[in-house]
């Protein structure tokens, strides 16, 4: 201590030492930040370069061609894109009401002492690895679908014009609908957690005023909380969609992997991610097939980037105070 006091006049070299350390540290921080941007660029560019031979060979027709024929070397992306969109949208249709119900329960209805444990349990659903959902789906849901639910639904809807085509046999248990069901379960925790967090941002005064004029809990939710949090709720749904689009292992187990477009939701199909995961091992380095799989990856990245970007933009203003 006394030494510092004595050395006080010569403080300048110590300062420049600090300034040098500051510069180095700031440079490291900046470099790390730039690395993230480079990473995104590198992912896009590397997938595009990998898919280039395929884009060259098939042109824009790659997007609309429904063939996937390794024998004749004809590859088209229409079927996996169709499967990806159908399963993701169907999954959202099932997940959004349930996730909303969970978020509503956790913020307004549940007694305070159960909110934390139940909230944690729902969040743990998001932590279960994707491959475990795949095994659970394959060994638990697929038999249940094939033995009970699908035969029953097919019999019940037989003869009703549109529905009998949407839900037609044979009941294998696998297929687009089962994949959507698993996906729905997987994205519920993400959507529910986002909704819960944004519902909690609504000022208590607003809700209390509504309760004060005699609103029921549901009316407070519908007329006060939902309008206040609308953009963020949509952002949370888009986040779930982004998750569902790229989900791989769970879908791979239950989709059935057939390259065809069908209106039958009980029929098998594939998604971009499942096709890449299943066919990658069978494609040789430098082959047109490998290039087509990378091209599919590029398409998936573009789709999910757009969806996730929209989600971020919608979530930005109110969640977590991140300005």
């Amino acid at each position: 201590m006394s030494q510092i006091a004595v050395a006080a006049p010569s403080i300048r070299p110590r300062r420049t030492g600090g300034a040098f350390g500051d510069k180095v540290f700031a440079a490291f921080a900046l470099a790390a930040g730039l690395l993230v941007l480079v990473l995104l660029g590198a992912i896009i560019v590397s997938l595009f370069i990998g898919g280039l031979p395929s884009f060259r060979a098939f042109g824009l027709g790659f997007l609309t061609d429904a063939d996937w024929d390794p024998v004749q070397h004809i590859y088209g992306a229409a079927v996996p894109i169709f499967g990806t969109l159908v399963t993701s949208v169907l999954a959202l249709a099932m997940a959004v009401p349930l996730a909303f119900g969970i978020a509503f329960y956790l913020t307004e209805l549940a007694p305070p002492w159960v909110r934390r444990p139940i909230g944690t349990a729902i969040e743990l659903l998001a932590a279960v690895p994707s491959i475990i959902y795949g095994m659970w789906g394959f060994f638990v849901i697929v038999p249940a679908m094939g033995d009970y639910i699908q035969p029953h639904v097919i019999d019940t809807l037989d003869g009703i014009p549109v529905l009998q085509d949407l839900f037609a046999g044979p009941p294998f248990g696998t297929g687009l609908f089962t994949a959507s069901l698993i996906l729905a379960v997987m994205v519920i925790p993400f959507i529910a957690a986002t909704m819960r967090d944004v519902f909690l941002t609504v000022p208590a005064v607003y809700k209390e005023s509504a309760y004060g004029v005699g609103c029921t809990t549901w009316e407070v939710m519908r007329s006060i909380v939902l309008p206040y949090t609308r953009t963020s709720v949509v952002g949370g749904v888009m986040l779930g969609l982004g998750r569902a689009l790229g989900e791989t292992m769970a879908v791979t187990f239950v989709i059935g992997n057939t390259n065809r477009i069908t209106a039958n939701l009980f029929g098998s199909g594939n998604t971009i991610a499942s096709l890449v995961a299943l066919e990658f091992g069978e494609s040789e380095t430098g082959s047109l097939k490998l290039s087509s799989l990378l091209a599919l990856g590029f398409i998936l990245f573009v789709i999910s980037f757009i969806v996730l970007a929209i989600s971020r933009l919608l979530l930005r203003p109110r969640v977590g105070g991140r300005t």
Partner: protein
Amino acid sequence: MSATTAMAEPRRDLRMAATLSRRRQRRNFVIKVFCILATVVGLVVLASILFTLLRLGIGGLKVTVFTHMTKPSGEDGGLLNPIVGSLIQTGIGAAIGTPIGIMVGTYLAEYAAKSVLGNAVRFVSDVLLSAPSILIGLFIYQLFVNGHGYSGIAGALSLAVIVIPIVVRTTEDMLRLIPVALREAAVALGAPKWKAIVLICYRAALDGIATGVLLAVARVAGETAPLLFTSLGNGNWSLDLTKPMASLPLAIYKYAGSPADDWVQLAWVGAMLITFGVLALNIVARVALRPRR
């Protein structure tokens, strides 16, 4: 207005109000029941997954699972090499991703909180947080595997890419929670900014940052898709990072789809180990974070 209508109207209003109120209460009740059912569905799914894992996994839990390598079906194989491979790749992935993630988080919280570049980095990092992990695998394949061959280090790198955005997010959030007064106090004592960050802010945010790292480890420990194209999996004992390396998720994937009963049994044991490990990490991370909230 005649006297009769004036007398009748309030009574009709009352009756209507009563019906309306009953309808509103009924709707409220129906929706409440739906919300409770939705929550029950979520909890039942979690319980069903855990129960299935225990029911099918616990019967195959033997010492040989941890002491034997993977072997052909019928030869009493274990999961030693996948477990070790997973530990190595997850460890290296976290070791590479964590410092980068912390530096990015520091940059966002301390240097570029509101700058255009900072916003861009934050945006991209958030997108990468939810980007399909299979594409990270394809990216590393294109970069390091194509032409060089599958390797354990490529697998670790793909996991590191997944770790970075998770650590970025928690680090930034935690650093932002630290009061400005703490930084001002350090600077007033003559400490350069980097010392204030490293010695004061990091220490104050330590449990939060550690939580982020734990969550990241839990996330990548179960990742399967990116490893398919990078470390490929290996049936033999190998610690060579430049060769294909086994991992638990890949072994589970391979065994779960096989027709051999003993392999499927091993897959369930592996699935049980990995799930309970990952959930335990999550719970530890949450408990560690609790006092801060």
